[in-house]
Structure formats: C-alpha cells, structure tokens
C-alpha cells in the first residue's frame, strides 16, 4: 500500500514517550471554574443562570444564541459566583454531582434530526486545538448524501501531545461507536480513523473493534507534521485538494477530532453534555507529565497542580502544541473545549535564537504544505505589499508554522505571513 502523506512538512522531535505510556488520570477540581461564552467562532452564548444560583454538573448555564453558537454547561456542582458578558464563574462545591440523564432510545432507532439536536444541545464544538466550531453545523452540510468520507482525525502530529492517542488506546470501542453515530447521519459515507504510523498500537487496538464494521476503516498515515491539518489529512486519504474558501464538505468529506467524536458518543448514548475532555500536560518544567480527564472550566493552575506542579519556574507556558499553541503570561485561565494541551518549559528556545538575513536556502519552500514561498511572502508582509501577498497566494497559508520552525536564519516567517493573512482576509476557517 502506498504511504499516505502529503508534500512538504517537518519532523520536529516528537517528545511523546513520557506521556503516551501513562494511563490518563482524573483531575479533580476545586475552587472557581470559569466558562467563556465564546470560542473563536460565531456568537456569544446567552447566560441562563444568575449569580447565587445552585447548578449541577451538566446544567445548561448559557444558551446558544443563533445558528453559529453553542450551549455552555457547568462541569461541576456549585454556586454561580458571577455572570458577565463573556464569562460565567462557578464556585465548585467540591463534589461531582451530575444531573441525571435519560436516554430514551439507541441511536440506531433515532431520526437524524434527533441525533443532530442531541449534539447541538450538548454544546459540542471542534475539540482539536484552536477549533471551537460548532459540530452540529459541520454535521449539517447542504447535501448530506454527497458526503462520502467521515474522517476521525487521530493524527495528533503536534509534538508532546498524546491526549488523542490515550483516548484511542483507552476507549477505542467508544470512538468507533461515536463514528457510527456520525455515519448514521450520512448514508453514503465511509468512516475512516486516521492515525500516524508512530502510533501503531492505537491502530491495532482500533482494528480489533472494526471486525464487524464494514463502513469503517483504520488508516495509517506517514508520521509528519502537519499531517493532522485538515487539508493535508484530506489530501493524504482521498487525494482531494481543498483551498481557502472551500469547506471539506465541498469535496464530500467531514473531519472530526477524536475528542469530538468521543463527546458525540457521550451526548447521544448517555445524554451528557460536553463538560470534560482529555488534556495533555507536559514539558520539562512539569513534575509528573501525563494526560488528564479534566472538567471544562478548570483553572490551568489547578490542572498543572494535578500534574505535580512545576519543577522549576517555567520560562514558557503554552496552551496547545508547541507548533501552533499560544504562549501565555497569565496562568489564571480556564481549560476550554478546544484546549488539548498545557505545556510548560523551563527554557524558551525561541528567545535564544540568533536571527540573520535570509540566505535563500529554500528550506521554507520545501516544508510549506501549501506549496507557498514563505520567504517571499514574509518579505511582502514586512513591506506591507498586500497586492504581492495576495498575488502569491498568501491567503492559502494554513498557519502550521513549519516555515518558522525550519528557517536556519530564524526569521519569524509564520508570524509575518499570518499577521498579513489576518489583515487581508475575513476568512477564519
């Protein structure tokens, strides 16, 4: 079989061993949890609780306002401390008291609309890093019969991250079940579970559950960053190419993150909203790195404490992976639905690099998965030449950061290109 991959990409050190081998633990929450009413896409959810009110785990605290918006639920039992425009803060009562749920029927007996409405009610959004797009919208393309592939993205190409891997290893049956629920919505679709070939054990585990699943296949992809990027993943698996302005559904494909599929299963089988997720806590400044099942809204400081705290004062803390994550100054922020990792490093390699002029080595061109010329685009961006930037397809940048990673002159190529891309396009993917 041909190796499934794409052109370009980089091979940063994976650094996954430490956390991949350890079973995920629960992160118990205490103190205040905060729930942002807005994630990257759409409209703010509208609060439906008031300060001082008692809520259980799973209580709806903010309702989706409009189509591109999603419900927010409390992940703990406790008292609403305050409600403002974009956050609700809940003081945990220290116990996990979940609202009882009733699921009337098995999903195979449900109508498609019923499944979709359960997913919408559960407040499910894309749970890969920096996603947050409401899943029910993704699952409602114009013509559901034209969807030929539903891909579960288990590539996890970012270094350090192992939360998807642990989910696949620990609950493979549930991922398969979740995908079956999604396939129920698309009569002509095949399911694919995409995993990079450095995670063979996950592929083997998943395959055990696919014996009686004619509609689902496990596919092993070549290990390379950014294999998990939507366009590169779709290309590797189906040969179809997506450009900016297109959605995967336009070529008959849907891509869902492992955690999202897991949440879909919980919502449809157990009637439970999205209130917890798996998060990788790693990096050399973390005492006991590992994966944690953590309640949404948990303070990142508490999550780091659950991993034993810091060994040394970190110089850099990143929400998400090291390639595309966001570095933060303030640890007092919550785990959100799309937080896949918290990384802490004792040293920040970026501030120690010595930048030189571009030496035209062409490495950025070789690695750019969008087949752009990053060095030129960065020059245009620095000069403010919007015309040249657009003419050379700068808006096709998928923000993977591979160019900055590889650049021997240590130029901030991605930063320049992405800033200009954000200025020139309203497209937010």
């Amino acid at each position, binding site marked *: 079989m041909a190796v499934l991959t794409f052109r370009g990409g980089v091979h940063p050190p994976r650094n996954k061993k430490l956390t991949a081998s350890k079973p995920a633990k629960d992160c118990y929450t205490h103190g205040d949890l905060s729930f942002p009413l807005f994630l990257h896409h759409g409209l703010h959810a509208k609060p439906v609780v008031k300060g001082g009110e008692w809520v259980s785990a799973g209580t709806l605290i903010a309702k989706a306002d409009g189509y591109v918006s999603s419900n927010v639920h409390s992940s703990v039992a406790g008292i609403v401390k305050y409600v403002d425009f974009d956050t609700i803060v809940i003081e945990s009562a220290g116990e996990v008291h979940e609202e009882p749920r009733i699921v009337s029927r098995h999903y195979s007996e449900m109508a498609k609309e019923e499944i979709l409405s359960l997913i919408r009610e559960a407040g499910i959004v894309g749970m890969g890093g920096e996603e947050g797009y409401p899943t029910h919208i993704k699952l409602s393309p114009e013509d559901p019969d034209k969807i030929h592939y539903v891909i579960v993205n288990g590539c996890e190409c970012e270094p350090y991250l192992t939360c998807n891997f642990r989910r696949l290893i620990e609950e493979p049956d549930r991922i398969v079940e979740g995908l079956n629920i999604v396939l129920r919505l698309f009569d002509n679709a095949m399911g694919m579970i995409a995993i990079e070939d450095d995670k063979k054990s996950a592929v083997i585990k998943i395959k055990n559950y696919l014996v009686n699943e004619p509609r689902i296949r496990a596919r092993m992809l070549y290990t390379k960053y950014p294999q998990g990027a939507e366009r590169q993943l779709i290309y590797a698996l189906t040969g179809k190419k*997506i450009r900016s302005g297109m959605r995967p559904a336009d070529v008959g494909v849907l891509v869902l993150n492992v955690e999202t599929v897991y949440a879909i299963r919980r919502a449809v089988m157990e009637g439970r909203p999205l209130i917890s997720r798996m998060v990788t806590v790693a990096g050399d400044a973390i005492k006991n790195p590992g994966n944690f099942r953590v309640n949404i809204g948990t303070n990142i400081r508490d999550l780091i404490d659950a991993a034993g705290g810091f060994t040394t004062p970190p110089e850099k803390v990143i929400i998400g992976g090291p390639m595309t*994550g966001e570095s933060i100054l303030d640890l007092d922020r919550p785990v959100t639905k799309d937080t896949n990792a918290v990384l802490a490093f004792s040293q920040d390699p970026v501030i120690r*690099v010595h930048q030189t002029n*571009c030496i035209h080595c*062409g490495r950025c061109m070789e690695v750019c998965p969008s087949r752009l010329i990053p060095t030129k685009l960065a020059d245009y961006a620095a000069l403010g030449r919007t015309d040249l930037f657009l003419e050379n397809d700068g808006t096709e940048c998928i923000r993977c950061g591979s160019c900055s990673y590889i650049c021997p002159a240590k130029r901030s190529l991605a930063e320049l290109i992405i800033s200009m891309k954000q200025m020139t396009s309203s497209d937010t993917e």
Partner: protein
Amino acid sequence: MNENSNLRISFYPHIRDKASTSRIMLDVAISLLPATIFGVFNFGWYALLLILVCVGTCVILELIWDLGNHKRMTIRDLSAVVTGMILALNLPPTLPLWMAAVGAAFAIVIVKLLFGGLGQNIMNPAACAKCFLMICFATRMNMFVYQGVLSTPPIEVLRAGGTVDLLQLFLGNTSGCIGETCAVALIIGAIYLFIRRIIDFRIPLFFLIAAVIYIGIYSLFTRGGIDMTLIGAHLLSGGMLLGAFFMATDYVTSPVSRPGRIIYGAFIGALVCTFRLFGTANGSVCFAILLGNLVVPLIERITRRKSFGKEE
C-alpha cells in the same frame, strides 16, 4: 504568583529546528577542509598563508563594517570565513599576498556588504572576486608554479590539445589553483555536504551532466567519436568540481525552486564548456557562475510554483 515573573510570550512555533545560518556556514567550511589541507600539502606553506590572508581580510573587513554601521556582529554567521576560503582555493598558489587581500576585500565589501550583506548579494562574492583579479592581475593570475618550476595547469594543456594523466588529476598531483587540483578531496567534502543535507544534488548533478553532454557532442564533431578521456579530463581538471559542489550551490545566488536549480546547474555547466572549448580556460567556471547568477531572477520567474490545490 512568582512563577509568572519568568514567563515569556512569542508567536508560534515555540520550537525551532537545530539548523542555523552559522551551523550551515560551519559545515561548508568543514567540507572545504579536505581540499584546503591537500592544497597546502601540494603547494606548500605559502598556500596556507594565502588562505589565511583571504579569510582574515574578509572577516576583519566585515567586522569593521559592522562596527562602523553599529550593526550586530554579522561575522558570527561565519559566511565571511566561507567566502575567504572559497576565494583562496581559487587562487594560484604563488599569487602575491597583497593581491589576494585586494581580491578578498573586493569580494566582501563590493560584492557582499555594499549589496546589503548576507543573503542580499546578487553575485557569488568569491567567483566575482576571482574574475576581478583575473582582469586586474592577468599575468600573476595565469602564472602557475608547481614544484619549483613554471608549469602549465592541466586545463591549459587540454586547451592546447595536449593530453593529461587522469589518475594524477583525480589524486590532485598537478599544477593549478590551490583548492581545485584534488578531485578526491573535493568529492569527500561534497559527500559531507550531502550527508549534512546542506546542498541539493540538483545543481551539481545537472552542472556535470550538462558538461558531459556538451563535451561529448563536441568530441563527436571534432574527433569523430565520443572521447571519454576528454570528458573525464575536463570534469576532473580546473575548477569544475570546486565550482559545481561549492560555488554554484551557494544558496544566496542560486534559485530556490527545485526545477530552477536544474536549469541553473545545466546553464552554468554548458557555459563552462563553451568558455573552455572556444574561449579561455582559466577562470571559466567563475565567469560561468557569475553569468548564471545574473539569470537567477529570470529562472525564478519561469519556475514559480503553484500553491496547493492550484497545480495542474
């Protein structure tokens, strides 16, 4: 919140590859060492002195330039060292030191720094300086002394229609410029560059392929058959290998796209042969590389690639 005091933020990615400009330049310098050492062995200590003068002039002038312009220390990127080394390897072993210094100064100040420093020059500094010296000091640049006697380098022997010993060319026991005589040393250096993934195989490969085809066709017409000895002699003599592996592959002055590198390599290879077979032999590689440098923008334009999803 004392742990926050250390925290820094920056745009992603938060990790960077190990490769750096200075490491690449160091690798190029290391790859030139076999040829350098053999040059000193073959031509004596004066050759070492010439090399040191070239490197020293390049580094010192760039340092003065940086200090004068209050710029960051750009000599740390080691590109000045590489320029000095490559220029020295292209000089006859008996050139007066001051001429070498003039050449090095021309390379670093006129060709590199005045164009904006590292990465901004449009011509290969060492190749340009060699051509400059060829024109200014034609007599001394064409005077080769080998083992105490005035001698004709193999490339000139070939040009005059004579024959040369291929094995001696391969081992380097011949007259010529300091770094160009020993094919073995140059190939060892090139292998190092390939292993370290510093250079792309396309430029040297198509450089040499173009030369082989060109000389093959030439011998077909002038000697009534493909003369393998002539082809071999041209590949191993003069600055052919030095140029193909170490000068034409200079990142700054070569195309960045892969198809562009193929065109560029083949173009220079063909030019070298044109100069050698119909024009002047000594310095032909450097002149060809300079002309190649000048067509790089054109090559880049015609080989501009399409972005993902826009191919075909």
